[in-house]
């Protein structure tokens, strides 16, 4: 193995010399210094991907199938992209000359130890702005996540996005185990069933909201899939209009409809009027089963509970719908 490594380093150095010679002859003078003869303090120069592949052919076997490789090799648009490997890893001349020095090449693994800020800067040189406009200062950035904590740009592990896992959600679960458990509850978003991903609601690259929501508010996150509840309605329900998660637990719940608590108790956390039923004590003698053994059923307990009557709880457009009954 050691001999093999040595051979590949020699090959890399030869390739690097060739690359630099070629650059000296045909390319930019600024990039013409031979790595072997460059002083220690001089900036590293690009050596070209051929030099990289002398040692890193196994990586290339996978990298070659990635979107990055396709872009860099088949249709690069600028000098950075034309560097292929060095577009991300930085100029490699010093690395070629001293392969074990971790200061001489940028890498994206724990083992190599390139500072996170430096890693992410490499990615953001092409990927800043757009959906990553809010990355600086975001929750993930503040927690010093590297791009490669979620992405593996060297291989196609996922259908899209060069993620480290097979899917978006599996990638998120590696840190957000609590949410994975919530998606296993009785009522949940169809994430385990492959019909939604965390990114349908969240932008892991940052947003103007603390929970990294993709829209300007919780409700505006929910409306794209629940457009019928967008309204506005003649008769509005205050907690519904302001924030869906007043009543719903967005990842999953042990209750029906992702509710944060059982009905009617959930409704009673806000409703206790002087007249009528909402403030009444609802209890176990009011189920349909109890009615068989001497209890008295209550429509506020059985089935859909309060929504047995207040069916249009998200808002009503019926002229008589002030109490959401039509």
């Amino acid at each position, binding site marked *: 193995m050691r001999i093999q490594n040595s051979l590949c380093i020699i090959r890399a150095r030869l390739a690097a010399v060739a690359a630099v010679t070629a650059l000296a002859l045909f390319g930019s003078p600024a990039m013409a210094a031979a790595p072997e003869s460059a002083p220690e303090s001089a900036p590293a120069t690009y050596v070209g991907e051929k030099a990289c592949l002398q040692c890193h052919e*196994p990586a290339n*076997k*996978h990298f070659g199938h990635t*979107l990055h490789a396709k872009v860099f090799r088949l*249709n690069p648009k*600028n000098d950075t992209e034309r560097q292929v490997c060095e577009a991300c890893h930085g100029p490699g001349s010093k690395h070629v000359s001293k392969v074990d020095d971790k200061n001489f090449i940028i890498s994206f*693994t*724990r083992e190599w130890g390139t*500072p996170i800020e430096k890693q992410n800067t490499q990615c953001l040189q092409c990927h800043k*702005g*757009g959906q990553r*406009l809010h990355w600086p*200062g975001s929750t993930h950035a503040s927690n*010093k996540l*590297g791009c*490669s*904590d979620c992405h593996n740009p060297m291989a196609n592990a*996922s259908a899209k996005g060069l993620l480290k896992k097979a*899917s978006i959600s599996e990638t998120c679960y590696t*840190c*957000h*185990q*609590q949410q994975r*458990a919530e998606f296993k509850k009785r009522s949940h978003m169809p994430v385990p*069933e492959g019909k*939604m991903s965390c990114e349908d609601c969240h932008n892991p690259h940052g947003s103007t909201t603390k929970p990294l929501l993709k829209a*300007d508010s919780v409700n*505006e996150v929910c409306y*794209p899939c629940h*457009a*019928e509840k*967008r*309204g506005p309605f003649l008769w*509005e329900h*205050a907690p519904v*209009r302001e924030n869906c998660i007043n009543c719903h637990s967005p990842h999953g719940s*042990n209750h*029906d409809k992702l509710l944060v608590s059982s009905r009617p*108790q959930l409704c009673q956390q*806000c409703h*206790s*009027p*002087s*007249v*009528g039923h909402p*403030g009444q*004590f609802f*209890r*176990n003698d009011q189920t*349909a*089963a*109890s009615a068989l053994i001497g209890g008295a059923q209550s429509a506020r307990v*059985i089935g*859909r509970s309060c*929504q047995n009557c207040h*069916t249009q709880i998200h808002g009503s457009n019926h*002229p*008589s719908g002030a109490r959401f*009954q*039509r």
Partner: protein
Amino acid sequence: MKARIRSRLKILTLCVGAAVVQLAAAAAQADTGVGVDTVLGNALNPGTGNTMRDRDPAGLSGQPQTRRTPTGQLYELPYLPVTPKATESGWTYSGSVEAGVLGGDANEKNATFRMYKDLDNGLYLNNFEVEAEKADEARFVEAVGGGVGRNDQYFGVEFGRYNDWKVEAFYNETPHVFTSTYRSLWSGLGTDNLTLNALTPGGTTSAAVTGPNIVNALAATENSELSLVRKKGGVRYDTNLSDAWKFFGSYSNEKREGARPFAAVFGGGGGGGNVEIPESIDYNTHDLLAGLRYSDSLTSLNLQVAASLFRNNIDTMTFDNPLFITTNTIAGVPATTFTQGRYDLYPDNDYYNAKGEYARALPDFYSGRFTAVASLSRLRQNDNLIPPSMYPLTGGTINGVSTADNWNTTAALSKSSADAEINIRLLDLGLALNPTDALNVKGKVRYYETKNSTEYWACNPLTGQWGRLLNDGSGGNFPIPNATAGNNPVGTLNTAYNAAGCNLAATQALGLVPSAGNGGIRNIPFDYKQFNYTLGADYRVSTASSLNATFEREEYEREYRERDKTWEDKLKLGYTNRGIEDGTVRASYERTNRRGSEYHPDPYDPFFSTSLGPLPTATGTNVASWIHIMDSFRKFDLADRDQNILNARFNYMVATDLDVGVALQYKDARYPDSAYGRNDRQKQNSLSLDLNYQPSAEVAVYGFYSYQASRMHQTGLQANACVIGTTYNFLSNGAVQTTALTAAQIAAGITIVSTTTVTAADFLAVCGAASDTSPLYPTSRTWDVTSEDRNDTLGMGLRYDFGKAKLDLNYTYSTSRTQISYGYNAAALGLTAAQEALIGSGMPDLEFKQQILDASLLVPISKAAATRLFYRYEKGTIRDWHYDGVAQNPVPATNAVYLDAGPQDYKASVVGLFLQVAF
């Protein structure tokens, strides 16, 4: 020649296939910044396509050990790359398809089993994927699909030129099964008209006769499914206009069709009868989105416009009423009139948004960065309103006014269309500076506003009557001048308000005390303003560790809520250290305190009939309806709250091929000023463990366990009564009565502890405040509920390559239990010993247990083909007291009909045999 023909045929096949998929498709694959639809897949293909491909033992480095993320988590060994086949035209291609047969219990009908998936016995095309590329032109085409022909099928196609432009199209179906134990009495589910199958609309003879008829009809009715399917497709175009400018535009359309559980009530407050009906769903939503993105070394700019148009093809839903209902309010119209009911279902609505995001690096100003976001949204709907009743109500009267043809046209409304609109504005400004290399400070100001300009008055211009005709006319809520002698001049007619012609000021000028104080007379246009001020700092302690602190003040100004203003101060401290040997720790602690302006328990007077006239003063007036809620009740979203949140995560690299993770959350909220409502302590704690072991390309094992426990407490009070001039006796056992002690009470040792006499001068104070001596809110009638959840989730998986076969196992076991316990004073609530025996100390536990095992054995046949034996075992157990006894007792009382027996236990073993072919 033959080879060339074959090659062209292959290309043609690919192109046709892609085109077919594209045609089948619709909407935009979103990116992480905008839109939904970020994934294509289904329950059998949660990762979109085939995930049982061979792994590369050489990994990325040519050496067997795997690499780790900066946090220290193992990357999975990459799949062995597929070598594409070349054609003479310069295209290369590769692909795979997996098809076979599903059997066993794949056609299990249980709603929990089928909730978001559609498995059935029979032939099944599980997934396919194709990709082709013309390297010299940087062109590509990719297509994926799965679950073909089922309600969870998905297709996607993408083509374009690398780094230049691309078109993505998709089609995705998502089923949602709500129940499989619904006994429908109607035909026409999914349409705008539900007609009874075997029962007489409006019932027969009497409610007592009708009830058994319904029971008999249900006995002959099979369980059926209520479900809907989302069918969504879209297309998105992305192009790089230059190195700095990018453009994208997308369109998607979603159709939702089916039916879901719903219900209907008759009468006024609900006493006329209730029955579970299905809600027909036929939605169509169009979404359009376009954006321009710019980014150079200093500046980033995003401009985006979006429109979403929701259309409900079932504007109103009419249903036959199986009940012999009880009416109120209306006189002279027989109950049998109400053979049908009508819903005004969700109205069509339009949503528009324009958004700009700007970021500018300030390299010469403390290496700073400035960001600004402005967003404008409009939510609008102007649906035609429907009349309060579909019936002419001939021969009827309400408070002496004829109902004939006065409520069955939109002339009975204050407006004929909704004209509802909410405008939203967002402005978000941020500045981050780096005074030193190690220190980053940032400040942010955010303003978010919703402005609701919807106005609707509940007054009938035809009759001048304030109030609402309820539930098709079977009930009503109409404020009229108060009839208790002394409140209004002698001889005041019930119709006195009507002469004002729906003019509020003219009505108020009459100076007449209304009959009740809680009748809704206009809508409440809830809206709010939200301000966030944030100041934070991030200090790099070392190359691998940092500390951060953030202070945020969040203020809300709400219209028409109990508090005009709330503010919450949030202090958060965070620590990250990736420099720990073999580990990474991330921890944060947040303390938040929410307070607010004075809490007005009842800010809704202007929207209720109380605003029509002065307060009542006459002895004998029941004034409970003027007191909408007790003064010590706090709605939890506005209540004072002190909250502590601790989050910690530790990732540890146990060995070169093994890592573990531990995550902890402690969340504790207290509501210090909430005597009633959600109060006491609300807790949500979790502990999760994660294990990942990847010793070789042949073996990989993972496991996880999550424990969650939460608690919520609330206190309520069952209101009593409040009548001016009445003396209430408060007994030693908690009961409240207006009569003297009975002999039995005296014999039982019960005494009168105190008395309160309600007067016109003090009824708001005496009855509006919960106290030991409040006639309306006596604390003895307090009840409280504690809800405690415990959830455990265990998961594990194994991937093992035997050489001649590969095994893939995934197993999850999740169990949840919610215990709801309550406390109450039986005597105070007038409950009998027999009732107490049934009531007990809480509701039966809500339980959910589910096991899911997925096992696959892949046996290669050749280099290009393999068979996969698939086995999925699911077992679900569910207990939900809401549905206890419904199947046996669907009509537990006269005019109370429940048709959904709720979720049921299930067990299903699904087997499959698939052939995988790669090409």
